[in-house]
């Protein structure tokens, strides 16, 4: 998230927030807002909602790619490490078996693959989401605490080129939400 852009149109304003009761209303509102030409916006829900990210124009989810890379790294690291131990660092004749007795290395290689992939899934998901972070402007709206309980929100951000306080708020009011608030930065 690049909030630290110096060319801010509205100092001290993060965006405008509208609140809904159901996920369906939120998805519909997002689609309308996107069709209206707004691009810099985000929707907030207390649970995953089908089609919500797509409705605000999100397309490419790179978590799976990161996990694939993590898993391949795990396989190479695990197998390579065992080869290095048994052929370079500590070559050791065990019952006449060859130093490269690779089938015996598969279980540990497999575990390394799972370990690396799982940790990559966690870290890449958090990193791409910009988490952990201590604060975010959206929390400045007191009613936003219901975003983790039972309410659904759409926020059009002030950075959007089409954003203008009056016209955006009056547009958001047409979406049928409960109330529209400005989000102070």
């Amino acid at each position, binding site marked *: 998230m690049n909030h630290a852009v110096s060319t801010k149109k509205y100092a001290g304003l993060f965006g405008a927030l509208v609140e809904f009761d159901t996920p369906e209303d939120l998805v519909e509102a997002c689609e309308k807002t996107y069709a209206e030409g707004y691009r810099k916006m985000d929707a907030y829900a*207390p*649970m995953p909602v089908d089609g919500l990210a797509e409705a605000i124009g999100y397309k490419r989810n790179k978590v799976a790619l990161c996990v694939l890379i993590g898993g391949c790294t795990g396989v190479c690291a695990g197998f390579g490490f065992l080869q290095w131990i048994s052929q370079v*660092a500590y070559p050791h004749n065990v019952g006449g078996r060859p130093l490269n007795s690779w089938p015996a290395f598969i279980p540990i290689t497999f575990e390394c693959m799972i370990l690396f992939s*799982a940790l990559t*899934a*966690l870290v890449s998901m958090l990193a791409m989401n910009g988490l952990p*972070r201590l604060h975010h402007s959206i929390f400045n709206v007191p*009613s936003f605490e219901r975003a983790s309980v*039972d309410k659904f929100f759409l926020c059009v951000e002030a950075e959007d080129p089409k954003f203008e306080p009056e016209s955006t708020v009056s547009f958001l009011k047409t979406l049928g939400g409960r109330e529209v608030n400005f989000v102070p930065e």
Partner: protein
Amino acid sequence: MDQIEKVNNYQLPSELIPDPGADIVLGHGLDYKMVTNRIAGVVYLPLKNSPKKWLVGAFFSFCFVNLLMLAIYVLFTKGTGIWGLNIPVAWGFAIINFVWWIGIGHAGTLISAVLFLVKQDWRTSINRFSEAMTLFAVACAGMFPILHLGRPWLFYWLLPYPNSMWLWPQPRSPLEWDVFAVSTYGTVSLVFWYVGLIPDLASLRDTAPSLLQRKIYGIMSLGWRGSAIHWHRYQKAYLLLAGLSTPLVLSVHTIVSFDFAVSQLPGWHTTIFPPYFVAGAVYSGFAMVLTLIIPLRSWYNMRDLITLRTIESACKLMLGVGLIVGYGYGMEAFFAWYSGDKYEAFMYWNRITGPYGFMYWLLILCNIAIPQLLWSRKVRHSLWLVWVISIVVNIGMWLERFEIVVTSLHRDFLPSSWGMYSPTKWDIATYAGTIGFFMLLIFLFVRFLPSISIFEVREQVHHDLHAQPVEEHV
């Protein structure tokens, strides 16, 4: 401004909430806010409003944790000689309990990962709880091999790290595979559990009555704000973690079974072990889930959140997996006969008729005979019976591990090296102590973290809202 009223002095619903029956996953009339309050409320429950049974249970578990500490202290000062281990039975309680505990962990992963992949909605209400169970069971399991080392303070020698002696562990040994399997399993289970908790911790941050709770849960929730894009990546990561945990759980108990199967000992050296161990693990794990959730849902008046449907489905799965375990027992007998190997045949004959034979038949009673009662719908709907059967299966699975470890070792090739094994009071104290440790962790978990996944229950509420009108037309 439409803020949430913070729940001060939360009390459990005073009247008994009935179970909606075996047809639906959640009770009627729940909405997003209500499920949040009900599940998070348990965490906010002041100690004076906590069920008395919780206090008594936590106190007794704590006493057993002290017993565990004492047993470990004596072990550290005197050595493994305080246990009943000797030649020929050099693997006694420590390995039996290790295998038993790690097996219990497996149903937790199965419920949260495999049932997630195959979209079983009844898992929603117990997945968080069973993941926690996995984690705590792995913690108990991990203790045993380390205590068994003789010099447990040198346990880090098992890990490959550059040391001044330039010695590296032996990567061809199943015991070394075990180190990787169990530590990976523990780590991945923790990651999976924590990822599932993040959105719920954010709910706790926003609803907790005290500032301190809001701060702690706020930090633990990592600043989660429920953005649609975040949810999208989150769901992908969760799906992948479920997909990774599934082969992991199979590999872990497979590798545990390799500890036995790769050896040359009659009774251990058999190809049926990996699938047979995995089935046994899942069997005991389902039994433990049932043992725990049946009291839990009644203590916290959660019968509409963890419904009979969940319990009945778990029973059916337990019954099914139990039959696979039964097939494993049958195959063991068949291998012993069909191999034509006289040591194999003798080992089996000794197992069922020898000095430990009564334990074998007790095991058949516990694992094969009694669980057949679950074929009856009446039995599955009688919670007391289900609870008793689940404990019987737990005992049966422990007996199975005893049989595998002890009867294969105590009479092998040469009659001159035969011997008997019996546990000492310290063996029993350590085992009972880990049960106390496990229970205490469960009690604390229920008290401090949401024991049901709140956001997944919200999804289920949403799903039910849309499913109902369709059902009415039908």
